[in-house]
């Protein structure tokens, strides 16, 4: 019913009771499945995954030569509602998600006002249902106003539908409050997603502290700030038995710290972004704020360590940290421009071009990091093509070459260091709850 409402308003999806995706290479890491097969969707659910399905579906999609995966999940986006709709809103962000192959996204609470109470969570959940393009999950704040002083009413927010908690955007300096948050959530099983940069060490910093910042004179954000923060939170997770998820890990040493902690059985998980896997601070041009993000682009050694961590399981998942800003906010002096850039629409292109086609990662591992792993960590009913699972499906043409052009973005954000890049591999269809989205006209 929800989807039908959306159909009428948006007229951008093909409503169908049944959909048959023919002849693609189906990769479903949750079921350890990788073979040429058909996927049959009936009433918004996966009905069958096997070769040569004999069924008269309302709609058939020829996926020959394409890769068919569970709908991608991005547990770290900023859709900017409420209050920052000039940067992004649920509609533009959802369209960007569809264009990028994401069927489930989780939006961060550093908005205006901060999503730090049940009333706001409830209204955002409702708003997400009303928009109804992709599944938008709501992450609540750990502390009131994300100020790091008092715990937010997290159990009320859980009751209202919050899937996880985060004071993303900055580090919670107050170790006691953070420890309390872990204890307070202990029996709920909910995860705290941590932005790991020790505050005093990154104050005023706008790029990685290294050779490049030394030459440019831009103030640095050193890796040691991240390492200290990750070490503290890992130790507090170990001490309390709480669940910590390291957001957008970027430092080689921090990856080591997480790896060691996992060996000890600490309940820590971690995520990394396409940019931190593939871009370095050598790309920072002080005349263009596109590269300004937190944590900043690091060095090749750090990229390599993140990839190693991704492959050996230290890093569980890939997120985009989709952080759009209004064009005029980014189109200004490097030190004044806000941090972050949109990532939903470029991630598959980046990852296929830089990691898959170069042979650095196999598809099953890559898709797992974007589907079943986040679903399992955050307890989402998503990320698999199991029978009766919600029919969230992404179809990728691994050979399709394209060039990133901000004019074609669905996000309201414009400045991305990936603009102008040539990629091989693109999402060609996104199916949410059985509905084939038709944003992608290429």
């Amino acid at each position, binding site marked *: 019913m929800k989807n039908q409402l959306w159909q009428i308003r948006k007229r951008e999806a093909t409503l169908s009771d049944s959909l048959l995706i023919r002849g693609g290479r189906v990769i479903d890491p949750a079921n350890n499945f990788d073979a040429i097969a058909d996927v049959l969707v009936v009433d918004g659910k996966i009905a069958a995954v096997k070769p040569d399905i004999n069924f008269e579906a309302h709609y058939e999609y020829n996926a020959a030569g394409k890769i068919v995966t569970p709908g991608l999940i991005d547990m770290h986006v900023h859709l900017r509602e409420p209050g920052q709709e000039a940067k992004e809103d649920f509609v533009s962000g959802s369209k960007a998600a569809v264009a990028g192959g994401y069927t489930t996204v989780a939006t961060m609470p550093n908005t205006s006002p901060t999503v730090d109470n049940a009333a706001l969570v409830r209204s955002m959940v409702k708003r997400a249902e009303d928009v109804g393009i992709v599944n938008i999950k709501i992450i609540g704040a750990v502390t009131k106003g994300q100020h790091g002083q008092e715990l937010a009413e997290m159990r009320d927010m859980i009751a209202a539908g919050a899937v996880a908690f985060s004071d993303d955007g900055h580090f919670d300096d107050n170790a006691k409050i953070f420890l309390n948050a872990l204890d307070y959530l202990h029996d709920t099983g909910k995860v705290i997603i941590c932005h790991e940069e020790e505050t005093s060490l990154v104050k005023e910093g706008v790029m990685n*502290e*290294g*050779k490049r*910042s*030394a*030459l*440019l*004179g*831009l*103030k*640095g954000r*050193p890796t040691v700030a991240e390492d200290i923060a990750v070490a503290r939170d890992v130790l507090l997770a170990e001490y309390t038995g709480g669940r910590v998820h390291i957001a957008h890990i970027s430092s080689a040493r921090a990856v080591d710290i997480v790896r060691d902690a996992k060996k000890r059985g600490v309940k820590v998980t971690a995520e990394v972004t396409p940019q931190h896997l593939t871009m370095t601070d050598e790309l920072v*041009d*002080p*005349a*263009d704020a596109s590269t300004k993000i937190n944590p900043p682009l690091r060095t090749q050694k750090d990229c390599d360590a993140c990839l190693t961590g991704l492959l050996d399981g230290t890093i569980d998942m890939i997120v985009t940290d989709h952080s759009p800003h209004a064009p*005029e906010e980014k*189109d*200004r*002096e*490097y*030190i*004044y421009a806000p941090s972050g850039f949109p990532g939903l629409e470029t991630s598959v292109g980046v990852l296929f071009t830089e990691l898959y086609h170069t042979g650095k990662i196999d598809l099953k591992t890559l898709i797992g990091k974007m589907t079943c792993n986040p679903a399992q960590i955050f307890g989402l009913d998503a990320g698999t093509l199991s029978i009766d699972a919600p029919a969230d499906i992404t179809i990728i043409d691994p050979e399709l070459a394209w060039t990133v052009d901000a004019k074609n973005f669905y996000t309201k954000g414009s400045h991305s260091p990936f603009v102008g890049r040539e990629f091989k591999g693109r999402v060609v269809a996104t199916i949410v709850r059985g509905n084939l989205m038709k944003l992608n006209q290429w």
Partner: protein
Amino acid sequence: MENFSADDIRLVLNTARKFKQVIRRGGDKKLSNLRGKAIVNLFYEPSTRTRTSFELAGKYLGADVVSITSGTSSIVKGESLRDTLRTIEAMGTDAIVMRHKSEGAADFATRVVKPIIINAGDGAHAHPSQALLDLFTIEQAKGRLAGLKVVIVGDILHSRVARSDVYAMTRMGMEVHFAGFKTMLPRFFDFDGVTIHESLDDALKNADVVNVLRIQLERQQAGLFPSTREYARVFGINEDRLRLVKDDALILHPGPQNKGLEISSEATYCERSAIHDQVQNGVAIRMALLNLTLGGAA
């Protein structure tokens, strides 16, 4: 500064030599090289030397020069840098001389508008005209540049002068040494021809030139050193310290100075100090830059 080749630098220095004679000859200094050209000084940060010398340099060359400071313009009304630049461009401006707090601001400007952009300082990144006038002053005093040992002392981390000096000086074959408290030295600074010292005395040995940087008082509040007194004792340039350098060593300071902090009064006013010459040379260098970029007569 990184875009200047040795030949470019040589051209600017040679051009400046001619203009210095114009300044020194007295009487009517007004030339007509840039008659009909309009230059706007756009300064987002306070400045005495750089702004005034660019303004006079343009006027001596016959151009029309207007200075805008951030406090008395629509910048306080929140106008963006892009729009301010476009506004200035629309008035028929041929060159914009720009000082800004953000690194990269001048490069940003070159992408936004068509007039010649001259970087008069962008954050801690670059201050090319200062580096060129430093070279000019050194060459005027020493008769050469290649092979000279320069020590740059003080807050290297936050200094656009040091960063531009490094490019300009190494390109002309000079040996550059940095000296400062480790709290004010850039970590990971890796540059051919540059040596970094945490001890001032080690750095100063046999120096031909000592360039003393300004210490901003906010750095003490930021915890980079405990007191101005201790800074002056350990890193201040004074008569005692100057015994370590060569007898004919030259002392430079980009100004404005904190007397008694990074440099003593005796050191400022001693015979070896070229700090006063730097100011006049600054006008000559800026005349050269404007004349060369705006296509004035040779």
